[in-house]
């Protein structure tokens, strides 16, 4: 084996971090660099996982070890494909691994998706998390919203829309967006799920959590039955607990959960005015809404210079000699954070086998990249400056106030911000 292999990982989300962790255990002397488009590491842990789920975000502490103790380099502010090409990385490193995730909202695949007033859940959750390359505030949603999709991301969106600002205590939510939204919040949400209440993909704990917000009335419509109703008892426990037997007072928000409802089109001339769904008996029904949010998963833009139109692979991380992929970029946008650890172990095994077998030429690694890359990159110490600035800026009932702008983050990382 090469005495000192040089490895480049593109993307610092769970996939990239778990891979670096696994590789480091077997290759104590290898040079490992994680390249990241943003000045902050951790990917969707920071910018996807809901801001009111701080326990889930605390996995960052584990990944921080890589940079603080395990001698893994963080090269932030480097968008691979534009600032440096994949060919440059491959020419200078023995192994390059794409751990770039999948950020594009998957399309539902129905007419009307391009209408005004149709938004992807990825966009909204990035805004809620102050992603520096996303819009700083939510789009106008109106009073009635239809959400297509019955997964956990869909419930993250529902929770964001029904909670009041005071209920985000301890979070690092984007308060600018939240306050603007809270001035005219949504009063009706229709969540459209094509499966039955039993088969809906969402996590019971996430369903139960919805019930903690006061002033919200949940009702369930099972479209497989003649009158759209099913007894509460027929629902899985978490859902049944959500559905009150006797609704009291006037609710602040009404949430209707539609099951066995397949979206056939989004209705509207220029702007969406509703969603048409098909019931199991073939009948069509219209659900009026002033805006529509799609939450049916994520995929890759085929014009992406790295992954492009290569589909997912459940079998191998191998793409070409010395080129691999892991995480969502490999498996498709499926699975929680821990699944990326499992995935990293399998891909690391492929990489270790390759390094052990091949007679590799010397490759300079990070030092061999153009000076422009070195000049531009922000390092881990820079991220710690951003981290400190964000914590210091947090109001009393928040854990941090994120810097909402990429240039500002880079300047903070470089200490060029005027204090």
């Amino acid at each position: 084996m090469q005495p000192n292999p040089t490895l480049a990982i593109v993307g610092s989300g769970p996939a990239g971090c778990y891979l670096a962790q696994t590789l480091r255990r077997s290759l104590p002397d290898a040079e490992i660099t994680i390249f990241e488009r943003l000045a902050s590491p951790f990917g969707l842990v920071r910018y996807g996982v809901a801001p009111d789920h701080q326990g889930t975000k605390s996995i960052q502490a584990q990944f921080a070890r890589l940079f603080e103790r395990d001698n893994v380099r963080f090269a932030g502010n480097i968008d691979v494909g534009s600032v440096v090409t994949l060919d440059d990385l491959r020419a200078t490193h023995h192994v390059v691994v794409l751990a770039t995730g999948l950020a594009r909202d998957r399309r539902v695949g129905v007419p009307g998706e391009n209408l005004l007033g149709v938004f992807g859940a990825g966009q909204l959750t990035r805004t809620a998390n102050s992603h520096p390359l996303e819009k700083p505030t939510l789009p106008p949603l109106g009073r009635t919203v239809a959400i297509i999709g019955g997964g956990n991301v869909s419930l993250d969106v529902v929770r964001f829309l029904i909670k009041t600002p005071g209920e985000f205590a301890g979070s690092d939510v984007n308060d600018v967006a939240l306050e603007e939204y809270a001035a005219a919040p949504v009063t009706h949400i229709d969540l459209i799920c094509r499966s039955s209440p039993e088969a809906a993909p969402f996590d019971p704990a996430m369903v139960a959590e919805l019930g903690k917000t006061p002033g919200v009335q949940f009702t369930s419509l099972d479209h497989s039955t003649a009158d759209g109703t099913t007894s509460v008892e027929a629902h899985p426990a978490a859902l049944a607990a959500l559905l009150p037997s006797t609704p009291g007072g006037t609710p602040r928000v009404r949430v209707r959960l539609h099951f066995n409802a397949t979206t056939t089109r989004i209705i509207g001339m220029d702007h969406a005015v509703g969603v048409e769904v098909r019931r199991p008996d073939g009948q069509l029904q219209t659900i009026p809404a002033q805006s529509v949010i799609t939450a049916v998963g994520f995929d890759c833009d085929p014009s992406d210079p790295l992954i492009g139109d290569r589909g997912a692979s459940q079998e191998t991380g191998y793409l070409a000699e010395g080129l691999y992929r892991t995480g969502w970029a490999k498996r498709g946008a499926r699975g929680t954070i821990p699944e990326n650890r499992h995935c990293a172990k399998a891909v690391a095994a492929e990489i270790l086998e390759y390094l052990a077998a091949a007679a590799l030429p010397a490759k300079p690694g990070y030092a061999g990249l153009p000076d422009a890359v070195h000049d531009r990159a922000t390092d881990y110490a820079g991220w710690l400056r951003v981290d400190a600035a964000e914590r210091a800026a947090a109001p009393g009932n928040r854990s941090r106030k994120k810097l909402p702008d990429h240039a500002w983050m880079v300047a903070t990382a470089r200490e060029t911000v005027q204090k």
Partner: protein
Amino acid sequence: MKISILFGTESGNGELAAEDLALSLADGHDVEVRDLAEVTVEKISDEALFVFICSTYGEGELPNTALPFYTALSETRPDLTGVKFAIFGLGDSFYTETFGHGSLKLGAELEELGAHRVGEFGRHDASTWEPVGEAAVTWFAEVLSSMRLASHPG
């Protein structure tokens, strides 16, 4: 005294705690760290102090990687009389009803089979952002001192 640290983890926090704990004990103790996914129940004997570090998933379940071990315990029901163990549970208080239940289940099963728990039940709450390694090291120091007290009372 030999110390065998066995971790059950899904997202890696338990492994980190196990490694940190092992590192803190390396001076003066014979320590090994193993993944519960790779440990068979026959391994559990009175020849070491077993330290279980285990998180919680699903609705109060053990992590996937620890399930085969746990299932084997409940199916083969080995006699663990004489076995000493300490246990540290990882969880998230966000899951109010099932906080730390994975390790509680594992600990209850070990005791049911005759093993003896030493020290307090350790707990880590992901929502606190407390470094899990430090929490495990602090907890285990207490376990050791309670064992010393027990063997040399007064």
